[in-house]
């Protein structure tokens, strides 16, 4: 099939579909005026029922907390699978040489890169921590905080180089953080059952509206997600960065 024929076919198919697309598009609600009732209902009832001001966290960790548990374990499975595929063979040794492409100059890090990374790396880590802690109050939460912390670790890599970075973050620690976080989330769900309540029912004191410690059980689940996401993404970065090292048999001594 020549490219011209293919484009012709595409145009023909588009023309055939056009009336149907037009009919559906004309029947859509106007932009910015959703007809769904769920969001407004949560916004109206959430603050009173759960004492939190970030309704996204309330939906993620309380009203639909069970769905988040599923997503949490999907992430754990994905990261575990990637780690199993990539772990071993290269980069485990802290002093492993960087892999090189023949005939390509190796350019060291500029001092400005180191300066900027050392300035913004810790600030990013702190911001991620802030975001994870304030899940029930301001936008963001365990997942967002976790990925921001993991990005901060990347800045640390740019600032300190591979060896310093590897000395800073241990693979074992990341394993424990990731698995422990997911376990904490699941256990937070089982805890209410010990008191004869439903799975993941919010039985902890809800705290005061707009306070960091508002939301009750949500805080525990959020901490679990923050740990699991930080550990998961950092482990993914670590396993991938190891792939840029030379094979141990080649770097030998």
């Amino acid at each position, binding site marked *: 099939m020549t490219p011209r024929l293919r484009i012709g076919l595409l145009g023909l198919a588009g023309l055939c579909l056009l009336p149907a697309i037009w009919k559906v598009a004309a029947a859509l609600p106007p932009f*910015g005026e959703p007809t769904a009732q769920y969001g407004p209902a949560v916004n109206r009832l959430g603050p009173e029922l759960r004492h939190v001001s970030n309704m996204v966290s309330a939906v993620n960790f309380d009203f639909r907390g069970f769905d988040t548990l599923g997503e949490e374990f999907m992430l754990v499975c994905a990261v575990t699978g990637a780690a199993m595929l990539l772990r071993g063979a290269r980069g485990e040794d802290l002093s492993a040489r960087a*892999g090189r492409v023949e005939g390509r100059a190796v350019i060291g890090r500029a001092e400005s890169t180191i300066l900027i990374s050392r300035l913004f790396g810790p600030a990013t880590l702190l911001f991620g921590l802030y975001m994870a802690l304030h899940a029930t109050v301001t936008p*963001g939460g365990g997942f967002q905080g976790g990925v921001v912390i993991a990005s901060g670790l990347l800045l640390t890599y740019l600032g300190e180089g591979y060896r310093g970075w590897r000395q800073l973050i241990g693979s074992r620690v990341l394993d424990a953080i990731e698995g422990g976080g997911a376990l904490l989330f699941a256990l937070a769900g089982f805890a209410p059952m010990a008191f004869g309540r439903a799975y993941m029912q919010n039985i902890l004191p809800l705290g005061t509206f707009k306070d960091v410690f508002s939301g009750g059980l949500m805080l525990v689940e959020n901490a679990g997600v923050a740990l699991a996401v930080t550990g998961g993404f950092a482990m993914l970065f670590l396993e991938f960065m190891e792939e840029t090292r030379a094979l141990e048999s080649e770097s030998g001594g």
Partner: protein
Amino acid sequence: MSILLAMVLLLAALAGAGVVLTRDPRSQVFALAANGTVLTLLFFALQAPDVALSELAVGTAATPLLFLVTLAAVRINRQRR
């Protein structure tokens, strides 16, 4: 729809087209990161800060890094054969 929103939507269309039309994989990674930045702006303009923060970290830092490392590993491996 406000002018700001219309402009960001247009920018998102341009950035997305940029990713598709870039042919060199390494440049494409940076086009992808730029697209992530534009999407972050779009989500922010649509008052979805939670999604914007996720997109910022995943779309502009995590995904591009994984692609860059993969490309580097492919190049390092290729010359060994």
